[in-house]
């Protein structure tokens, strides 16, 4: 009898214990580790990806990139700013309560000089707590897209930050690391268990998370191991050591798909690849002709007609690209199917246009291109060189590392260059203000159209959605006619997954563990 009882007890103990043993561990990898766990010191995707599992924002996006409430339950625009109603009953990992005070502290921290986010929220002039769970943000003029700008602005606990002397983000002058670089205390679905930079970071499910039970995710433990070398990263997936690779190289996707138990997911990324032509200066720096052929819209049209985007997609990108005539992707407010449709390749007409513009024998120009930034960047440029040769334009390719390429664009030292542009706010204003406004800091094309400049300013303050959308459309149609750029395609994102896990892929390349399901 006694023995039987003992046996029953141990069987019960075993059955109770077994769910804990069979916990769902998700092991994943990508090229680069987070640089720091401090949520405000680096605005860089791997860092945001890591911190986004531990910390949360007021407003977030789901895998379809639709704005969703996170730490704020609702928000509304007023005449001078936005009011956010905060979620109640939320606790930080150390047990402290989340209140308006933490929001005000975190925004103040993100506005600090040493923060990498100060630019994103520069429209906020003051921020105040109406009560413990209501925050009002006063903006400099109306800002219709403020919630869009807050999706990577993480909230820290004021008490924790003060106690650990991390009330401001890192700064360059101080010669030491702060407590927040390797420790984290957020409100998110996972808590930090251990972290060895560039080796292994372990996170565990936060049982006290406010969203427990509201999301499909069933991951108990996340082990993240960065692997810098692309071939090694794929090998780790093939050998079953990881369940998920965020950034497998395009040429290995077929092999991953062909392997039993593995699959590939793809989606159009919010990043468009294009060439810029400097039409703003009087004489090209790298050309054999006097003056600047790019000033003539016929030449710019010829440069667009010469590119065979389908061939680039087929031959260079192995099918993983969406050819386009726009420099911003579907998913961004302002991208329309009409404007997005790629122009038809027509080298004959391109030649005729060049002749009409006074360049029957073409001209020479240098194409500046990065070789370590975008998918197959250098190969796209090589393909373009031969396509331009067909219309008599001799393009000399200079493909160099990104650290040397981008300064050329910023210092406006290039005639013809490759650039890719992502849009974190998913709104055309971001594209206009940097790439098309005559004052735009990345407008090395020197594009200057009075109406486009006007619209760029107008949509920054227009709150009527329909009116705003029609202005944006008008500006894009103008840009399509002026052709300041040669759009090539929108990039495609690909993830490698074991078939035992299901994670929704999203165009912003963010890993959302709260939706990750292990079978």
């Amino acid at each position, binding site marked *: 009898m006694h023995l039987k009882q003992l046996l029953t007890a141990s069987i019960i103990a075993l059955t109770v214990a077994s769910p804990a043993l069979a916990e769902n561990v998700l092991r994943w990898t990508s090229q680069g580790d987070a*640089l720091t766990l401090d949520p405000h010191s680096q605005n860089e995707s791997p860092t945001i990806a890591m911190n986004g599992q531990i910390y949360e924002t007021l407003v977030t996006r789901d895998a379809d990139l639709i704005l969703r409430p996170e730490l704020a339950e609702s928000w509304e625009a007023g005449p001078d700013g936005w009011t956010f109603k905060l979620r109640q009953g939320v606790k930080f990992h150390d047990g402290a309560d989340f209140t308006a005070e933490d929001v005000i502290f975190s925004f103040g921290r993100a506005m600090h000089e040493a923060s990498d986010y100060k*630019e994103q929220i520069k429209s906020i002039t003051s921020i105040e707590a109406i009560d413990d769970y209501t925050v009002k943000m006063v903006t400099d003029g109306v800002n219709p897209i403020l919630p869009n700008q807050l999706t990577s602005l993480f909230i820290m606990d004021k008490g924790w930050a003060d106690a650990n002397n991390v009330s401001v983000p890192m700064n360059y002058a101080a010669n030491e690391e702060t407590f927040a670089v390797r420790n984290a205390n957020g409100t998110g679905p996972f808590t930090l268990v251990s972290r060895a930079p560039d080796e292994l970071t372990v996170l565990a499910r936060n049982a006290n998370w406010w969203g427990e039970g509201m999301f499909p995710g069933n991951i108990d433990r996340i082990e993240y191991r960065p692997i810098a070398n692309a*071939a090694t990263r794929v090998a780790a997936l093939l050998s079953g*050591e990881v369940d998920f690779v965020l950034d497998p190289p395009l040429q290995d996707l077929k092999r991953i798909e062909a392997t039993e138990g593995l699959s590939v997911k793809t989606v159009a990324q919010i990043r468009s690849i294009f060439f810029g032509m400097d039409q703003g200066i009087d004489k090209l720096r790298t050309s054999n002709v006097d003056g600047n052929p790019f000033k003539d819209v016929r030449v710019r049209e010829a440069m667009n007609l010469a590119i065979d985007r389908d061939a680039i997609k087929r031959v260079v990108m192995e099918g993983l690209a969406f050819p386009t005539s726009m420099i911003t992707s579907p998913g961004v407010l302002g991208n329309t199917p009409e404007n997005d449709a790629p122009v038809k390749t027509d080298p004959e007409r391109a030649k005729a246009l060049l002749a009409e513009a006074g360049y029957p024998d073409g001209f020479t120009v240098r194409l500046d291109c990065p070789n370590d930034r975008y998918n197959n960047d250098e190969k796209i440029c090589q393909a373009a060189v031969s396509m331009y040769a067909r219309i008599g334009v001799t393009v000399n390719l200079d493909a160099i590392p990104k*650290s*040397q390429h981008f300064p050329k664009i910023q210092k406006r030292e290039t005639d013809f260059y490759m650039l890719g*542009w992502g849009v974190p706010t998913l709104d055309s204003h971001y594209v206009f203000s940097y790439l098309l406004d005559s004052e735009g800091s990345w407008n090395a094309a020197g594009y200057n159209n009075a109406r486009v400049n006007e619209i760029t300013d107008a949509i920054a303050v227009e709150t009527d959605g329909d009116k705003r959308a029609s202005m944006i459309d008008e500006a894009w149609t103008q840009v399509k006619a002026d052709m300041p750029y040669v759009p090539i395609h929108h990039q495609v994102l690909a993830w490698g997954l074991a078939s035992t896990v299901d994670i929704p892929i999203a165009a912003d390349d963010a890993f959302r563990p709260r939706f990750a399901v292990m079978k």
Partner: protein
Amino acid sequence: MISFIAKRLAQSLLVMAIVSAVSFSLFNFVGDPVNNMVGQDATREQRLEIRDKLGLDDPIITQYSRFVGNMLKAEFGLSYRIKRPVDDLIAERLPATLELVFVSAVISLFFGIILGIYTGIKRNSWISRVILSTSLAGVSLPTFVIGIGLIYLFAVHLRWLPSSGRSGVVALGWWKTSLITLEGWRSIILPAITLSLFQLTLILRLVRAEMMEVMRTDFIKFARARGLSERAINFRHALRNTLVPVITIIGLNIGGLVAFSVVTETVFQWPGTGLMFIQAVNFVDVPIMAAYLVFVALLFVIINLIVDILYFVVDPRIRLGG
């Protein structure tokens, strides 16, 4: 002896000065770090502000003297990328690299000497021919090809060993070792073999050549005439005489192992100083690049100095000449 060492020391200082000048001038060609440090939406003013804070717009000569000054004080500053002190980062990563180098050195020595002796003595056996022709692969194949090949064979196909990373790490004070756990040995074995192959081949061929040379000398013939056993002749007399040049080469090659570990560590995601260096190059993280180059140069200089002093002690001819 003292004047000899003083002379060598002066030469070492000269080497360090040249290395610092060369590496400093390299930094001006690798690109602009500021672009990597800020997001694409940073304004022109913010970029200029950071350039100003980092002193990137100062005259070259000011930048260089600041660089040398900090180097002499062993102050390497903050990493641009990780925003942590560079000396901390190097101290943290060094154990991984040194353990990898140590295991590779042991592998290349052990197998290099054994196989060298065998192929030296049994020159014409088919096994020797196989060993020698395979060893050609060791010198001619690039390290990353060997590494990826080993990963695909042992991790992807056979699934015996992990493909990358350093697991089973145990902290002994500030030194984190992976050599006292089974997990740790499983993860070090592939990178260590990859790193050792080149050195192994070198030692094998050196021992073999020396062995063949020594076997032809009179004192071996005399030993044979005395009726000593083959075993005693091979190991007690011949091998001992071959080891002098081998030891020299090993000393010099430890530095080479550290330098070669850059590629091996990248392929295997081995979290040592080499991997850190590659990431620094991609980011234009000048403080880390500077510290690493100075560190490697210093390592070479110290090893060379020790080897020179050992020569001096061992070989009387140098003493007379110098």
